[in-house]
């Protein structure tokens, strides 16, 4: 069977379904449905993300507050005050280097 005969045979098959008249409207409807489902999905995701953020921020804030309001004993307070007032950088506690001749 040559190419032209095969093309003619195939031409005789006119069984392809016709395009429905309102197909474009159906397509736009599908586009809108798809967009709204994506938005719904995003809303759910945004809500879940917001909840997670609130939980994390609350957790961090709670732990900081808990630490800052911790009651110290009198001894601990005294140690803390001493530590804060003590200026170790000003006190020269370094020993002389062995190779520096101090007599000169």
């Amino acid at each position, binding site marked *: *069977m040559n190419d032209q005969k095969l093309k003619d045979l195939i031409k005789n098959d006119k*069984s392809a379904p016709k395009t429905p008249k309102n197909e474009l409207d159906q397509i736009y409807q599908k586009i809108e449905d798809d967009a709204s489902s994506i938005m719904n999905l995003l809303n759910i995701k945004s809500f879940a993300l917001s909840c997670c953020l609130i939980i994390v921020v609350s957790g961090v804030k709670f732990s900081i507050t808990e630490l800052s309001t911790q009651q110290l004993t009198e001894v601990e307070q005294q140690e803390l005050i001493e530590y804060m007032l003590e200026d170790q950088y000003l006190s020269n506690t370094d020993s002389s280097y062995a190779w520096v001749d101090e007599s000169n």
Partner: protein
Amino acid sequence: MIHLIKDILNPLSESSLEVKREDFDKLYMENAEFIRTSIYWMVRNQNIDDIVQDTFLKAWKKFDSFNRKSSFRTWLYRIAMNTTYDYLRKNKNYLESEVSSEISGDNNELKDLISKALHSLNLKHREAFILFYKFEYSQKEVAETLSISEGTAKSRIHYAKEKFTTFLKNNGVENE
């Protein structure tokens, strides 16, 4: 995903949406029948509305990224064939039973025979065969549409024809 984020960050204004819709309407009008026929000849099933609509839905989503230097028909055809391949993979058994259970009346006899002959071809050969014999594309056009070399297109058309005509011959169609 990136397009989705872009769309959310930069939603189309009413006027640009209107322009997009006008362009899309025009391209739909020009290509709808070709796309529907291409899908039908691949699937050989009357219920192809979902595939056609999904094709245009995907085209709408990717419309902004379409490079207008290339042919819109070829671009849309590739989307249609990817959608068809997905559909065929998911509904293989259903479609095969649909074809084999078709009633063979006077008008349906040729349709049924062609359907069965087409289903004897693998998808790549079927696609090349349809473009060449149904839409009467040249070998070069087949190659461009399928993004393959001309030699590969020629080979696919040749093997598809051999298998198709052998099937017809085995089913009593004269081979001149």
